[in-house]
């Protein structure tokens, strides 16, 4: 089929409804939510064109020369655009949008540059972790670090430290955790805790103001004693170790965090039950869908660049886009984007129905966010009402009351979308490099970078191997057990 540039120009940029038909349909029932999502997409699209894409290759080169380089200009621009506050409740100074809205924005940014998108979005993991404890005081603290900083032009970034040098997969799953060889421990001392050990590969670890650190108080019994601690980077006994030199996503530093008798006060420990089990499941069920969205972003970034290349380059005197082998590849790439997106949207919606999002942006909290004017939501009176022991107990009660099948459903969708999205993302990178030939190999054309960036998505938030097992345990096995009336 001959490529017709005029026909193409008409549909160059997909509308929200074209990208998200399920949501568009849903929006007929919840038009407000749809309007939020559309706004986030439009804002992210503008930010991508104006800031991310023009800087992506430059930032990579800077980090290649100096792994500690940080794209401050991009952080500040995102701050001015209000990006960090997207999913933070209005009561805490944010935009009060859902986790889902944030993910839609991350796909758009990720299609421009996965590394910068991670730099600007990885605090979502910290917020999810704190939310899943139900500790409303802790939630307020981390949220305000972002929003108040954002108002001043530079948010205080957050990192989440789970992985240890000898335990990566093991700390992502409660059954494996029992067998993990942990090196970190938070020993109770008078007035607080002393943290010891090392965390590795922590995204934004070297630039974060506060770290959500996951540690057991007794490493021989991690399942019952693992909690979340808020540790400021100025805490005595805390230091940033090495900043890694890595294959891709160079714009987002991954660092080692070292704790040497690092004292934190009692209040630094988030007030909750031990995290392994329900809380960790809720966090990963939510954030893995986010990684699925970055998978869609990788698929899309690769597709968009391959399409541009095919429209503007010839082989043997013929435009690539007029070659059938190229058309078929582009069609497959389009399909892969659609599949990856469809899955993460399912994961996102299932998370809003059954997972962490129903606690944070659903229920009474969600209704308040939607209905009350910002002035009321930001008032001291309401703040006092919200940030209270009663709210904490209510939230923790809600978490405990969630049914096992609900959590399983959200987790299975999250893991499935993570595996599928990131595999499809990598597949599109392979296809893009094939179409682009020589141009695909050079850094200055920005195509090979997506390949390097996308590979990370198959590794973090649990390797795709672990996530496949999660789909088996939570999707296949538990669903089957319930149907046959057996215990899971």
């Amino acid at each position, binding site marked *: 089929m001959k490529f017709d540039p005029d026909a193409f120009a008409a549909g160059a940029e997909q509308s929200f409804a074209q990208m998200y038909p399920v949501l568009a349909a849903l929006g007929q029932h919840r038009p407000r939510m749809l309007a939020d999502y559309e706004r986030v997409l439009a804002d992210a699209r503008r930010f991508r064109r104006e800031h991310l894409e023009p800087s992506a290759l430059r930032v990579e*080169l800077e980090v*290649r*020369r100096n792994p500690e380089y940080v794209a401050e200009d991009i952080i500040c621009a995102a701050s001015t655009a209000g990006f960090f506050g997207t999913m933070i409740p209005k009561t805490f100074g944010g935009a009060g949008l859902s986790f889902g809205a944030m993910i839609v924005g991350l796909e758009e940014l990720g299609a421009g540059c996965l590394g910068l998108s991670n730099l600007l979005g990885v605090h979502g993991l910290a917020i999810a972790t704190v939310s899943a404890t139900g500790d409303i005081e802790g939630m307020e603290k981390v949220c305000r670090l972002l929003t108040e900083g954002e108002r001043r032009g530079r948010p205080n970034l957050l990192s989440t430290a789970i*992985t240890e040098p*000898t*335990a*990566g*997969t*093991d700390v992502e799953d409660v059954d*494996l955790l029992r*067998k*993990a*060889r942990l090196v970190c421990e938070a020993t109770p001392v008078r007035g607080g805790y002393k943290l010891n050990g090392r965390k*590795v*590969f922590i995204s934004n670890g070297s630039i974060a103001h506060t770290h959500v650190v996951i540690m057991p108080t007794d490493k021989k019994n991690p399942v019952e004693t693992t909690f979340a601690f808020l540790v400021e980077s100025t805490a005595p006994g805390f230091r940033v170790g090495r900043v*890694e*030199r*890595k*294959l*891709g996503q160079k714009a987002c530093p991954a660092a080692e965090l070292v704790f040497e008798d690092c004292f934190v006060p009692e209040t630094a420990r988030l007030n909750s039950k031990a995290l392994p089990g329900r809380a960790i499941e809720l966090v990963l069920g939510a954030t893995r869908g986010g990684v699925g969205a970055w998978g869609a972003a990788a698929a899309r970034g690769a597709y968009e660049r391959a399409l541009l290349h095919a429209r503007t*380059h*010839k*082989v*043997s*005197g013929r435009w690539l886009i007029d070659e059938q*082998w190229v058309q078929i*590849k582009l069609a497959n790439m389009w399909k892969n984007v659609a599949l990856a997106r469809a899955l993460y949207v399912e994961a996102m919606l299932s998370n809003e129905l059954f997972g962490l999002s129903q606690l944070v942006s659903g229920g009474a909290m969600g209704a308040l966010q939607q209905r009350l004017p910002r002035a009321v939501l930001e008032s001291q009176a309401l703040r006092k009402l919200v940030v209270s022991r009663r709210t904490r107990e209510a939230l923790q009660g809600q978490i405990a009351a969630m049914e096992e099948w609900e959590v399983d459903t959200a987790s299975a969708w999250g893991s499935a979308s993570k595996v599928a999205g990131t595999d499809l993302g*990598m597949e599109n990178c*392979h296809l893009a*490099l*094939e179409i682009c*030939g*020589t*141009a*695909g*190999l*050079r*850094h*200055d054309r920005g195509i*090979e970078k997506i*390949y*390097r960036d996308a*590979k*990370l998505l*198959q*590794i*973090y938030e649990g*390797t*795709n*191997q672990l996530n*496949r*097992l999660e789909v088996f345990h939570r999707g296949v096995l538990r669903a089957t057990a319930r149907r046959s009336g057996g215990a899971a």
Partner: protein
Amino acid sequence: MNQQQRSEVTIVRQTAARFARDVLVPARHALLHHPDEALPAGLLDGLLGLGLHELGLEEEGERALLGAGLEELSRVAAAPASLVLAHVIARECLRQTGALERAPAAEGAGALLALPLYAEPGLGDEGPSLRQDGAAIVLDGIAELVVGAPLAGAAVLVARDAGDRERPALVLAPLDAPGVSVGPALLTLGMRGAPTADVRFSKARLPATARLAGATESGVVARDAARRARGPALAIAAGVVEASLRTATEYARERYQGGKQIVDHQEVRALLAGMVEDLALCAEAAELLCGDALAESRALALFARAKRRAAHATCDGVQLLGGNGYMEDYDQERCLRDAKQAQALLGRTDLAAQAATEAWLAEGAGS
């Protein structure tokens, strides 16, 4: 392969492995960070001292020796191997067009020939255009990603003959001629440490003898040189996969997760099994392709498939190491980049697969 040839291969392997261990391993950081960092003095001289670049593609025996040497180098770094391969293919083009004596007479790296190693052989993608002007030819435009250009004395490349319906013309271009400029060394996905650049021609007048062959012959020569280079090119990919598999296997034995060595998890075994399969395919195919026994359709198909599998195997190599695989320390990320770039050696795998079908049909298959 007879006994004599086998022992020659062993000697080449041992020499190349020693060079890799003694010179390339210590130079690892500079190789990874080229072009930001300069290559250590002596690395190129040492590479040339191995004599691999003097091996030809004409004889099966020499191709096997070349393949063995390049495979050994690529276990540590594929970049130096790609420099040698570019030079050897360029020389083969000169040999086939009777122009060997026109190769640059310089000493050291200046004697090297550069080549756009990742372009489709003989297709003249979007390379420079060529125009006849009396006794001279005039070149205009850019030859992209010419491997070895920042070092070499001359480059062999394909231009499009403006006077002959844009058909390919094989050219030997001295890189210091007026109107010829070599751009800065480029950062590429893999094979970092093989200085590579764009070569720009601005109304560059070269003697007519710089044109190595006419339109029909140019394509034939370029494709034939590439055909002979398939085995050694695949040996580069095989070396990279071997390195990745070795690291993965060691790591799978050392690393504990879930209370056991990760090699005891079936998913990890499956990753290893896939890599072993891919390595077997690459290494065997490289050896086969150094010979002349296969029909063209099979040779092309095998070449395309093996290059693709090499890239996939090294992705699995990274995956097996989890987060460590993504970091520079463990060499898996280098293998992933080198293998993906090796997939593009001598052009796109898809076009090779299409050429395989054409050959299959031309061979009268099924009739």
